[in-house]
């Protein structure tokens, strides 16, 4: 019963605050447009990374292969992606001196833009996840509570 009450409180707070955050985060973009924006940056990165050396190209290729939905439910709900290939590529290329400076700066700029797009998408998914997970927790718990209460009442009258 306490779990139902606590999850109910969570639901009240989350459903009162997060819809506004969801609206602010997407800024009139749809989820599909967010994904298309990331794909567009990937295409630009693919062509911009051609002049780079092999050592600098590897993290960029890893960033291109990255699945924005990957990371599991923990990453989805926390919004933290420590293994983000784009962030790793950004760190690597920022410290690298191997490639041509102009080309590297261009790739770094594109990586930053992709990271911003990824951040928006992941925040979008996180907020939606926080809203949805309440249904999967609270509703079954509520039915379980109703069943337990029914069993309790019936057994009380049965053994009266």
């Amino acid at each position, binding site marked *: 019963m306490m779990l139902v009450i606590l999850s109910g409180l969570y639901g009240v707070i989350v459903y009162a605050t997060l819809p506004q955050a969801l*609206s602010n985060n997407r800024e*009139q*973009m749809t989820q599909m447009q967010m994904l298309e924006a990331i794909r567009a940056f990937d295409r630009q990165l693919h062509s911009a990374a051609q002049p780079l050396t092999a050592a600098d190209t590897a993290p960029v290729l890893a960033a291109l292969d990255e699945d924005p939905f990957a990371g599991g439910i923990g990453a989805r709900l926390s919004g933290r992606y420590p293994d983000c290939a784009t962030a790793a590529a950004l760190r690597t290329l920022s410290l690298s001196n191997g490639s041509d400076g102009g080309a590297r700066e261009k790739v770094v700029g594109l990586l930053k833009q992709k990271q911003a797009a990824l951040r928006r998408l992941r925040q979008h998914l996180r907020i939606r996840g926080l809203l949805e997970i309440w*249904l*999967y927790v609270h*509703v079954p718990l509520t039915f379980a509570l109703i069943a337990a209460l029914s069993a309790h009442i019936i057994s009380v009258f049965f053994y009266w």
Partner: protein
Amino acid sequence: MVVEKDIGGKPIFLRYLPAGSFFGEMAVLSGAPRNATVKAAVASEVIRLKGEQFKAMLGASGRRCARRPRPRSPNAPQMNSFIESRKASYSCAVDLYSDTASFIMKEGLGEATDALLIDENLCVGCDNCEKACADSHEGLSRLDREAGKTFAHLHVPDELPPLRASALHGRLPAERHPPRSRRRSVHGARLHRLRQLHAQLPLWRDPHGSRAAAESRASLRWLLTGFGPGLGEPSPKWTKKQLGDEKPKKIAVKCDMCKAYRAAPRACGRARPARRSASRRRSSCRSRGSKRTPTDGEPVSAPPVEGHAGRARPRAAPRGLPAVMRGSAGRRFRAGSACSIIVELCAGRRDAAAQWRQLVRLYARHDRRGADPLAHRARLSQAQDDQRSLVLEGVDVGARLSGSEPDRRRYLAHGVPARLERAHASHGC
């Protein structure tokens, strides 16, 4: 209030300030000396806010917002020009505080008969509205909730993506669909974008969309646990059985505006300006009694849209047409069997069947040869289609049909040569 400025020792009128407006902000923000005089034209009630208090209020607001990243503050001339531009755009005091109302009106809620306005402070993004829309429209949602404009967390869902050539199996060139074509109704009236939810739209659908909707039954499992097919979604088992390994195709489907037109899948092109202008030309010809026939170059004579019977593909069976009407099934249309066929076609749509029967009576009364509406339907022109829609809407066009046989023949002479016409001719109908 009247704003004046002394130029050459004479007060020159600059502008009026409506009730609810403000003045004197320029000197407070920039510290420059005042350069105009404001006089009350009528008895006015004015609130005076001291500059120090206003700056203190701005400072307090700045401290509250200090944690948020703020854009670089504009310099005084830019801010002044911004404020002045805002003032200039106000025609009355209401405009000063009605940006939200202006947004709503700009989006057309003043004109729309049906509108959906979402308060995004409350919307949790479950998309059940789209599923409910799909459930009530034969498995096809006309609503794209996320798309559209938002102002102050008020969201006006936009129309779905425009027609593309690929949506019509490559038969329809994309340039035949200029964007503004989506802003016209079947009658040529200008539609508001909100009404475009009812426009003809292609989507990724399985080719059995309507049957999929029939198979769609929101289960108790979906209701309790969220798993399984929900509203407007066919079960995976049913979809697998229908499609096998085939991927869903992109097809055009009928909309609310033309779903009652059973004779051809007019899911596109009806609202195109080319067709509309052609319809107007026909109307003008009719009014002048002209015998002019459309040339081959005109869009009316070469409708490329599926189901509209382009001359280049005379024998192709129109997709989506009931088999009994294709002619390929070997059935011939007889006047006596028209009603039974109609009822068969309109099974499950009693209203439509009743309207068809009414149409049959109208034709039978005024034109014996037109007693078979299906055969006659094959030669209906675009303008007649529009007329028939008036019948469906309850407007009696019997008066127009009666005593207007010359007009009707002119209709036929100037009408769109439907694909069905050739199909029937080839079968001796």
